[in-house]
């Protein structure tokens, strides 16, 4: 628990706090994000925003068919997104399954990417359906192999059944394992939480339990990072900072495929949470296809004409 907002760590005091949260005006949230999405971005800001978005990408591969070769290629791309243009920054992190962490870490260390963290998805990703022992071991294993960021999934079944204390304790336990050096991102899987009220509750629950980031989705189910959900999360981190004095990060993941989507996310961040959040330490975008589109847009800004996918790598 990183705040004094709760009397103690009991389920009762957690529920008492969550009851104080105002319900979300879903129609208002949609209208606000729609309005913000129409904002036009001028050329010089766009150049800046594209580079910022590249630095915020958690370059991700979470497939059953992941091979060591694919992970190594992904790491190489993360360090130098376009080897022909070294002015392009590296990505924010490489996000892989537990067993690929060591391969990714070695590939980064040997490929000039010592500064890039490896994020591992743990706690029985993506469903979160496993015993606590397994989840703990999963996390310890990833950290031992060199993960410096942990993307854990919450137990949505427990959350929806009203078992908030269980979810709370799980996050706290995992955070204890992570300690202060490993960043913990808590995946809420908002697509399964049904309402925006639930999303708001889950955000506070995760922040109170000690999560360093709140993340929308696993990327395995649809809808994933919809704009109203990101809006609610950004409001939560903003208000939480006012209450507890701690800045929590936000990571939308899934469904952000092109530069336009990414720009819309950045506008939301700036307008809702504030410019302090426009930094890879507080905002990340979980994506795989997005990076290529960012690179193509960057080429277009540089050359003055539209680029072709033939000039970026196939992943």
């Amino acid at each position, binding site marked *: 628990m990183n705040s004094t907002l709760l009397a103690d760590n009991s389920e009762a005091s957690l529920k008492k706090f969550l009851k104080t949260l105002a319900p979300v005006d879903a129609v208002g949230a949609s209208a606000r994000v729609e309005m913000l999405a129409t904002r036009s971005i001028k050329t010089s800001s766009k150049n800046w925003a594209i580079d910022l978005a590249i630095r915020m990408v958690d370059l991700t591969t979470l497939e059953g068919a992941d091979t060591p070769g694919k992970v190594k290629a992904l790491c190489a791309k993360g360090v130098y997104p376009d080897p022909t243009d070294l002015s392009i920054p590296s990505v924010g992190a490489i996000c892989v399954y537990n067993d690929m962490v060591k391969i990714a870490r070695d590939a980064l260390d040997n490929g000039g990417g010592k500064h890039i963290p490896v994020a591992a998805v743990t706690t029985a990703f993506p469903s979160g359906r496993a015993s606590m022992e397994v989840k703990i071991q999963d996390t310890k294993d990833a950290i031992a192999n060199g993960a410096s960021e942990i993307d854990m999934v919450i137990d949505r079944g427990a959350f929806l059944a009203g078992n908030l204390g269980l979810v709370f304790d799980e996050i706290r336990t995992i955070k204890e394992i992570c300690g202060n050096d490993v960043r913990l991102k808590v995946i809420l899987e908002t697509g399964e939480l049904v309402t925006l009220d639930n999303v708001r509750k889950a955000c506070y629950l995760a922040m109170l339990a000690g999560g360093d980031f709140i993340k929308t989705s696993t990327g395995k189910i649809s809808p994933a990072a919809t704009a109203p959900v990101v809006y609610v999360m950004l409001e939560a981190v903003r208000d939480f900072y006012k209450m507890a004095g701690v800045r929590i990060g936000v990571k939308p993941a899934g469904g952000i495929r092109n530069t336009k989507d990414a720009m819309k996310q950045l506008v939301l961040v700036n307008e809702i949470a504030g410019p302090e959040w426009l930094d890879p330490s507080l905002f990340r975008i979980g994506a795989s296809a997005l990076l290529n589109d960012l690179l193509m847009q960057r080429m277009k800004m540089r050359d*003055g*004409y*539209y680029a*072709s*996918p*033939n*000039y970026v790598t196939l992943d």
Partner: protein
Amino acid sequence: MRIDVMKTYKLFINGSFPRSESGRVYEVKDSKGKFLANPCLGSRKDLRESVVAARTAHHGWASATAFNRGQILYRVAEIMQGRIDQFIAEIIAQEGASPTSAKTQVQSAIDTWVWYAGWCDKIDSISGSTNPVSGPYYNFSIPESLGVVAIFADAKPSLLNLVASLAPIIASGNTAILIANEKSPLCAITLAECISTSDVPAGVVNVLTGKFDQFVSWAGSHMDIDGIDATGVSKNDLTELKELGAENLKRIYSFNELQTTKRMTNFMEVKTVWHPIGI
């Protein structure tokens, strides 16, 4: 007395009919200088959207069997047949043609479409080959579609030129961005309506209206367009188009004949395969 319902001429991108992203239109007059329609003034972003749609559609369209493509193209001709009167009216209005010559033009346009539909599953046999090589190998040359092709259609005769440019490009498995001639865009939009009610997958054909000289620089410099049928482009614009197109080695051709397999093979790439005999 009733007021006629006027048609809004819109673009055709990725299977739907949006207005131009720019929100702008331009005026088209008939041969006597009377107002005819306000088609969309297509923008650079409209072209970009079309290229993305065409690129996405290319794999599926190119890997459909040639026979299937032929069937779908023939279906387009069937739908065009039912729209004869509308085509005739538009040709009379925008070209000032006589009813008889307009009718002849529409009929030969449909015949040309069918002619190219028939070529879908035959072009491989005519332009591909089995090559004799000195060694225990089979050696085949197989023509394959190039990718995304932009078309600048000639003004007159409008429908016939549209068909003669578009049909061969998609028959061979390419996807197309048809830029309607700015003086006679009406038939192009009606043709798009025929295509959208056939079984042509979304994105295989995209139709834009607007100013040729603008589209020349946008299409010429777009790195994801592989070829351009420049039949309708003026001499000056053609020079600019070729200079810009050199950046990614676009294939840029103009044609005189309406029915020729050159219109297909010029936008195809030959793949040669060596295969050991006996395996």
